[in-house]
């Protein structure tokens, strides 16, 4: 692997060829703010918050740290006044869309943002695309970026409750502004997007305790992907809680049959 000499904020460091600036910065303890980056997903460079300046050769240029692959010796400046000014504008513009996000509020303080400059847009989404990319990675068919130009928004096909959703909740978990909600009501799981039900997934009832639990379709996908590695193996009729309890009882019983007694120590070993 080729090793590159990089000057990162004035400090000489080495990088692996092909490594992104964001990876290099994290390795070296340099913080670069991000909104649309997730270690689980390919970078999309949509929010542009991680923009930094790179000087390869003699021309400085603005690039996004999350996906810019270092291929030559270069100088990287992650926090110049120009960069900070651009980030400040990004935050101000996004705060006008989504003023209640704690993450944006924190950034707004860090960057000394003037929150009066832009009139509120009354939207609840920063269009970072994390949910759509996470969805694509899991099922690929439920959420996507719909609409053209400035009317772009996260949506299901034809704005209808999606039939493809498996109710995994990845979109809910990954949303940086926490604007996608999930609730389990009356035996179904609902994903709430823009205040609308984006999908309904039937929940099975546990045959053991009678409670509703995670969607079968989601469990099947997890089983398919994880296979033997799952302990205890998911079961489509029993909730994970009962499943764990049953496993514990089974192991305990085996221990009892073998040694005739329950022992604190033995139980721990069995687990």
């Amino acid at each position, binding site marked *: 692997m080729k090793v590159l000499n990089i000057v990162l904020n004035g400090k000489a460091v080495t990088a692996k060829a092909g490594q992104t600036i964001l990876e290099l910065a994290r390795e070296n303890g340099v913080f670069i703010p991000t909104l649309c980056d997730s270690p689980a997903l390919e970078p*999309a*460079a*949509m*929010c*542009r*918050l991680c*923009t930094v300046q790179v000087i390869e050769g003699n021309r400085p240029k*603005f*690039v*996004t740290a999350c*996906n*810019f*692959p270092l291929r030559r010796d270069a100088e990287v400046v992650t926090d110049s006044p*120009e960069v900070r*000014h*651009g980030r400040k*504008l*990004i935050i101000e*513009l*996004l705060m*006008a*869309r989504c003023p209640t996000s704690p993450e944006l509020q924190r950034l707004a303080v860090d960057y000394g943002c003037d929150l009066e*400059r*832009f*009139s509120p*847009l009354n939207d609840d989404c*920063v*269009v970072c*695309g994390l949910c759509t990319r996470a969805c694509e990675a899991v099922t690929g068919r439920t959420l*996507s*970026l719909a*609409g*053209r*130009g*400035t*009317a*772009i928004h996260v949506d299901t096909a034809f704005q209808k409750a999606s039939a493809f959703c498996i109710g995994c909740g990845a979109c809910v978990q990954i949303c940086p502004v926490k604007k996608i909600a999930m609730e389990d009501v009356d035996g179904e799981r609902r994903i709430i997007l823009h205040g609308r039900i984006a999908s309904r997934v039937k929940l099975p009832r546990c045959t053991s305790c009678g409670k509703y639990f995670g969607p079968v379709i989601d469990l099947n996908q997890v089983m398919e992907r994880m296979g033997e590695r799952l302990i205890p193996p998911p079961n489509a009729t029993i909730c994970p809680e009962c499943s764990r309890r049953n496993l514990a009882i089974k192991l305990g019983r085996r221990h009892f049959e073998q040694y005739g007694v329950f022992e604190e120590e033995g139980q721990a070993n069995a687990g």
Partner: protein
Amino acid sequence: MTEAIQTAILPSEAAKIMSPEGLALFRQELLSGHDPNAPLVLVCCGTGCRAAGSVAVVDKFRQVLSGTAWNGKVVPMIKHTGCHGLCSRGPLVVIEPGDLFYQRVTVDDVEEIVNKTILNNETIARLQYKPANSKEVISKTSDIPYYAKQTRLVLKNIGKVDPTDIRDSIMRGSYSALAKVLTRMSPQDVINEVADSKLRGRGGAGFPTGLKWESCARQEGTRYVICNADEGDPGAFMDGALLEGDPHSVLEGMAICAYAIGSNRGYMYVRAEYPMAVKTLTIAIPQAEALGLLGENIMGTGFNFKVTISTGAGAFVCGESSALMASLEGKVGRPRPKYIRSVEKGFRDSPSNLNNVETYANIPGIITNGAEWYKSYGTQRSSGTKVFALTGNVNNIGLVEVPMGISLMEIVFGIGGGIPNKRALKGVQTGGPSGGCIPIPHTIPDINVGYGKLAEVGSIMGSGGMIVMDEDTCMVEVARYFVNFLFQESCGQCTPCREGLIRMREILTRITQGQGKEGDIELLEEIGNFTNSFSLCGLGTSAANPVLSTIRYFREEYNAHVRDKKCPAGVCKPLFHYEINPETCTGCGLCKSKCPVKAISGEKKKTHVIDQSLCIKCMECYKGCKFRSVIIK
């Protein structure tokens, strides 16, 4: 074009051309069967002329000519051709031999043309070209200043060939450059020739074509040749006209590129709003394949190149190369970051060479005549010619091809014939929504049109849209128009472009409605500079150009809007009113008769008055007054 022509084109005995020499023989054969002295009627069937009724004119000519015999034996030929260029005077008809030019020809004129001009060599003065402000007619096409001052290298076949008949193009030399590279040049020779010619991408950015080919050829794996015909700039129609009028030059250019970079697959990405271009290509490609000039085993040399047409779905952003490739793959047309360029990893993650229609159309000429010949046109840094779509407030609206380095004033006045209605020139907008306004002649007296010069003054070459603006143009409104266009056409995925355009549009709309605030202009500049440096793709990084360039050169006009609440050009309706100047008004009553809401009163030969409470500011009186007595206040 018509179905009848499509099927009649290739005689059944037309066999595939099995060697490059076979092409020369075939051409010879075609030329020998053609009498250069026989009358030939060329009717422009470009979009403009079609809209003006040229298809009916063609049909009428066919009908009348079928019963006619010139010299008692020959039936005069009629061809429907691509765009002749002088769109504002269509439908255009050129009669050969003699290069006789007729304009605004209607169905009713056809019989007269056949009887007088074709059969008896008499000209019809009423249909001939008269320059603005002159009564003298110009009879030959090549003598009309609009054509005489152009250098037509790329457009050389347009208006001369029937785009639905490949034999017509072959007679004028099409595919001979391809034959030359297949027999006498190695792929590297081709790349060197193109690189030597210093041809730069005609799509707008001006990247050296030879260098692009070279880097694509160096990659491993399946390579693709892609032609970007997703021409979406408002007011631009060069690529559409090229594909409609001379598809074989473009196809030949693509085939030469494929040979040079080692590819056998080509894609032509045409915008769906060009149905005629799509239709012409769907006729041209099978014809070329039937003759063995495209497809498998081209001219018997073993070289394969298959071209597939793909149509867009109406998104402007798909003219951006990575969005175009995503769209070609069947994905949503959104750009991707291009830190790894398409020549390395483009369409289907394979090395892809994407060029614009006009770039490919330049290639056959360079191969046939050599790089030195090509460099004899244009300037040191911008060689060759460029086709512009000249529109706006100019007398001769149409397609013009000029050598690089030509003076902009020469294009507007020499070729374009100046500004209509005795108005003064205020500026020229080049490069479409990514370009800027050049304030000639006031702030900048004149510039030589080239990549570098245009960038210097804050505009770009772009794909070749050139909008001429007169003194009645409001620059704030121009900026708002382009920002509004991009507001709708941005893909919306990255924050600076999406949010920046929302805010710039908001501020510009506010200013044009008379609600501009102190600080708005500075805020526009701040957002504009930010959008241009932080956005993801080429659309975003140039989205603020119309705003920044108009502020740079017309700041006073912005100030007038924001501070004085006045629109000096008289465009933004809440910011001006019309008055009649009592000192110059002759009381002719023309304004009164033109006013649709009867807001003007006054006796004959006495000063007229406008009732402001009734006036709807429709401009009729202002435009109509011969003494310029209606003034903007």
